[in-house]
């Protein structure tokens, strides 16, 4: 039981899934995490303990438990020193952000100063550090300092130019472009992510959706729509249970007027609804089927 709960929580943290949970679910996870940490503090090894504490901290923030979040933060500061730890500064900035976006930005600016201070060294020339060396803080700043979609995109591009392997940011950039209706640019970003993680079926699915959006926007040739189908198929090939891809495939097949493909997708989705392979998705699949049917 101990190992199972631990693994579940760690997985939740690693995948970042906790940020997308529904409120009731979030509350449940919060209770589990709270009890688990209280009971097992001594059993966990330090790395796991602090990882779970970080998760707990975010859960507290998401469920608006400020004081408890502060307690978790204090536990971090008991162990690590803020003037040495970039990570801790970033964590704290989330707490400060509750007080106000501007405050968080000010806090980051101030906290960065001791981190990049040149330290005396006996053996070599002391290294001059640049503000941009603090990549985690830079990333956090991108989110905080942007006040409009355009400036957000600009800041993201700047950040990505320095760390092109940060696929999280690429994906965020894609979503920003998509929100502005610039699907071609979004599609390029998604492809960049796919080059990095070619087995990410969720990203394949997103690529397919963007292609379909291009088709819907300007109704141009079937080629984009076919590309959308191919992307959905690839996603399904990588993960047969990914319902969102099946829904996308169904929609794309309908647009293409490909009766056979449509029937396959519809059958499969109905099977999923009946088989209840994935409980959370079933409701949404029903909606989609009702909408398209």
């Amino acid at each position: 039981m101990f190992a199972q709960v631990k693994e579940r929580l760690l997985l939740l943290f690693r995948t970042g899934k906790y940020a997308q949970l529904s409120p009731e679910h979030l509350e449940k996870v919060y209770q589990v995490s709270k009890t688990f940490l209280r009971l097992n503090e001594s059993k966990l090894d330090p790395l796991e303990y602090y990882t779970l504490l970080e998760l707990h901290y975010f859960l507290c923030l998401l469920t608006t438990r400020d004081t408890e979040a502060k307690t978790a933060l204090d536990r971090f500061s008991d162990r690590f020193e803020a003037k040495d730890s970039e990570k801790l500064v970033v964590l704290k900035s989330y707490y400060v952000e509750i007080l106000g976006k501007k405050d968080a930005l000010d806090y980051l600016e101030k906290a960065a100063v001791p981190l990049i201070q040149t330290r005396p060294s006996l053996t070599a020339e002391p290294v001059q550090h640049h503000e941009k060396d603090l990549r985690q803080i830079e990333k956090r700043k991108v989110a905080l300092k942007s006040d409009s979609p355009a400036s957000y995109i600009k800041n993201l591009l700047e950040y990505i130019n320095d760390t092109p392997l940060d696929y999280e940011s690429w994906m965020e950039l894609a979503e920003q472009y998509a929100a502005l209706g610039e699907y071609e640019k979004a599609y390029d970003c998604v492809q960049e992510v796919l080059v990095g993680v070619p087995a990410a079926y969720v990203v394949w699915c997103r690529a397919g959706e963007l292609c379909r959006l291009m088709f819907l926007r300007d109704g141009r040739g079937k080629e984009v729509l076919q590309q959308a189908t191919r992307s959905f198929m690839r996603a399904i090939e990588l993960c047969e249970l990914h319902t969102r891809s099946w829904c996308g495939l169904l929609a794309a097949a309908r647009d293409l007027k490909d009766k056979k493909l449509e029937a396959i997708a519809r059958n499969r989705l109905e099977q999923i609804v009946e088989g209840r392979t994935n409980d959370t998705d079933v409701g949404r699949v029903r909606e989609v089927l009702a909408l398209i049917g």
Partner: protein
Amino acid sequence: MPVPDLVLDPALKLWVLLPISVVMVLVGILRSYISVLLQPKMKLQDYRLVREQQHLARLRTYRRNYSIFWTKQELQNRIDFFISEYSGTKYLKELPPSDPNEIKNPLADANSSDLLLQMVKNNFANYVPQTLIMWWVNYFFKGYVVMRLPFNLTGNFKSMLQQSIDTTDLDVTYVSSISWYFVNLLGLKSIYSLLLDDGDIVNQLMAQQQQQPMVPPIAGAGPSADKQFKAELENLQIVPFKSCLEGIESRFAEKWG
């Protein structure tokens, strides 16, 4: 001719066997804490270096995973962009030296000299105590037969168990003091894990005792970044294009149709 059984003074157990083991355990624990103290701090990396390395890695991932594109043209567009982008010095951490034959002094570089110092420190923390104990055992207990194993062994174990005792006829089950030291050196892992209660430290300790120094890459060695960029771009231009989406419809139809 078999040698008659030796009579071992029971005081040997108390005054030789036990002290050697206790000293080794204590020194081992002390060393593990010293090595924790000596561990290097996380260093802040120059963002220009990170940028350079990540852009290089990006080109490498393109060479590996180009198959996600549907048409060759999509890939070609990107390659063309990369060629114009990466041919200059925009992403290099530092400009390439004007004289191509110039070799950088690895000791002048802060990072590599730190690495070297770290290596020296680790080795120091590793060799010094071992040498000291070995010297101590040899100085006080050289040529001691400290114990007799309760089971029989073949003659091959003689060199392992009876170092520093040069009698060919002595039964192999007798163990010399310096051999006891070696047995301790290699076999104390379970004791450490019991005492230190931390798997990581123990593994570290055992790895250190078995002494395999790692050779870290030193700055100035290997091709410079601008040459690596060039090489990666060339590699990228000659990839044989094939899309992973090719034939996906038939694969799909076969499975679900």
